[in-house]
Each structure stands twice: as structure tokens, then as C-alpha cells.
């Protein structure tokens, strides 16, 4: 066997060729990578839209506005002074 530089280079590169060392090992994962990237992008978009909605309508997202309105209505009804039926009638008269 010849052991000069160029022969050894030929042997080494030929051996690496048969091992497939030159082929892109990441190529087989590329479709999966692509799907993962798309999923993350879609999730990010959903989260962003949700965040925009919360910022735009801070109460409605959690139902706070409806609850607060209902509470205020109940409180105002409870604190209103009782009106005697006669007084009303007298005022009208």
C-alpha cells in the first residue's frame, strides 16, 4: 500500500464517502422541523391575538364587567329607601 499524502487522502475520503459522513444528517429531520416551526408560529399567533383582545377589552375576557354591573345594580336596589305607598299618592295629589 502506498502511504503518500494523496493516496492516504483518497483512502480516507473514500472511507468517509461509504460512511455517508458528507451527507447532511439534518436533512431527514427537516420535514419535522418545518411542522414544529409552523405549529409554534400558529400558537404564537393565537396567543398574540388573545393578548390583543385582552388589552382591547380588559373586562370582557374574564367576565368582570358583567359581574361588576350586576353587583352595582343589586347594591343600588338594596340601598334605595323604601317609599310608602301613601306618600306617593299624596305627592300626586
Amino acid at each position: 500500500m502506498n502511504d503518500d499524502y494523496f493516496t492516504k487522502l483518497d483512502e480516507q475520503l473514500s472511507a468517509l464517502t461509504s460512511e455517508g459522513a458528507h451527507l447532511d444528517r439534518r436533512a431527514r429531520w427537516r420535514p419535522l422541523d418545518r411542522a414544529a416551526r409552523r405549529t409554534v408560529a400558529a400558537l404564537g399567533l393565537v396567543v398574540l391575538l388573545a393578548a390583543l383582545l385582552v388589552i382591547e377589552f380588559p373586562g370582557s375576557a374574564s367576565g368582570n364587567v358583567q359581574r361588576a354591573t350586576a353587583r352595582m345594580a343589586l347594591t343600588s336596589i338594596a340601598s334605595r329607601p323604601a317609599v310608602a305607598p301613601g306618600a306617593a299618592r299624596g305627592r300626586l295629589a
Partner: protein
Amino acid sequence: MAHPRDHARWSDAELLAGIVARDPQAFSTFYRRHLRLVLATLAHETGNREAAADLTAEVFASVMVAAPRYQVRQDTAHAWLLGISRNVLGHSRRRGRVDDRARRRIGVQALALGDSDLERVDAALDEGRLEVSELVQALPALERSALVARIVDERPYAEIAAQFQCSETAVRKRVSRGLARLRAQLGES
């Protein structure tokens, strides 16, 4: 594709497809077919035998990595291979040291250069010179004179035009045709 045992008859495109298919014989055949051209080109460009040998290793490692992207445009892969050589050389010059990215990527181990290896670089360079010299001699007389005056003697077009009593455009055309003919002949050889 040609018979698997008959790699020497395979075209460059077939050999490169073989390299992608992990055929070690395809690589070896491609390497032996083009080693002299790459080595002579790099030795001529660098003027440094050690660097030329080192760069040659990087070029063939790059060939392995780039083989899946090879597109057949000509009968031989000379132009593609010389393009890779230029890229490797250019990158090495910019970095100030011999590029080794492709070798690191595929895991090539460093090899020691001996005196006989350096003699081989010289031989490749001489053979390359001889080949080009023969091809230049075979050019039509007008193209040869213009090519030698412009490329070898590095004389200005105006001076050559005055000597040959023709226009600068005519001289440029002769040089261009001569170079195209040389490239074509080098591609075929």
C-alpha cells in the same frame, strides 16, 4: 448509469451521483481523474506547494459535501470543480489560513506531507504548464499572438492594437476567443 464495476467509464455526473449514494469507488475515481487539475491550479495560484496540497484536500472534501447539489451543465465537472477550488482559495485568502471547514465537517484527519508529495505537486504543475503550453501553440496564429501579448506579457490593449495595426476591439475579441478555446480544450482534456 454505467456498470458498477466500470467506474472509469462513468461520467463526472455519474461519479458525483455515486458519491451521494455512498459509493467509495465513485469518489476514488473522481478524485484520481481530477487530482492533477486541482493540484496544478492551486499550486499555480498560491505558488506554495504545501498550501496547494492542503487546499486540494479541502477542495475534495468540499466536493463530497457539494455533490448532492451538482447540476449537469457540461460533459465534465471541470468548471464546477474549478469553481469550488476558487471558493476554497478565496475563503482561505480572506481568513489568512487554509480553509478546513469541509474537512472538519466530515471528520477528515490531518495528514503529513513528505518530500515525495511535494515533488508530486511540482510534477502536476509542470504537466499543467506543458498542457497549457501545447494548447496555446495549437491556437490560430492571430489569437495566440494576442493572447500571449495580453496575458503573458501583460501589455495594454492599445499597444497590442498598434503593433498588429488593428483596433483594440479586434484585439479584445482575439484574446477572448483564444481564452474561450483554451477553456473548452482544457475542459475536454
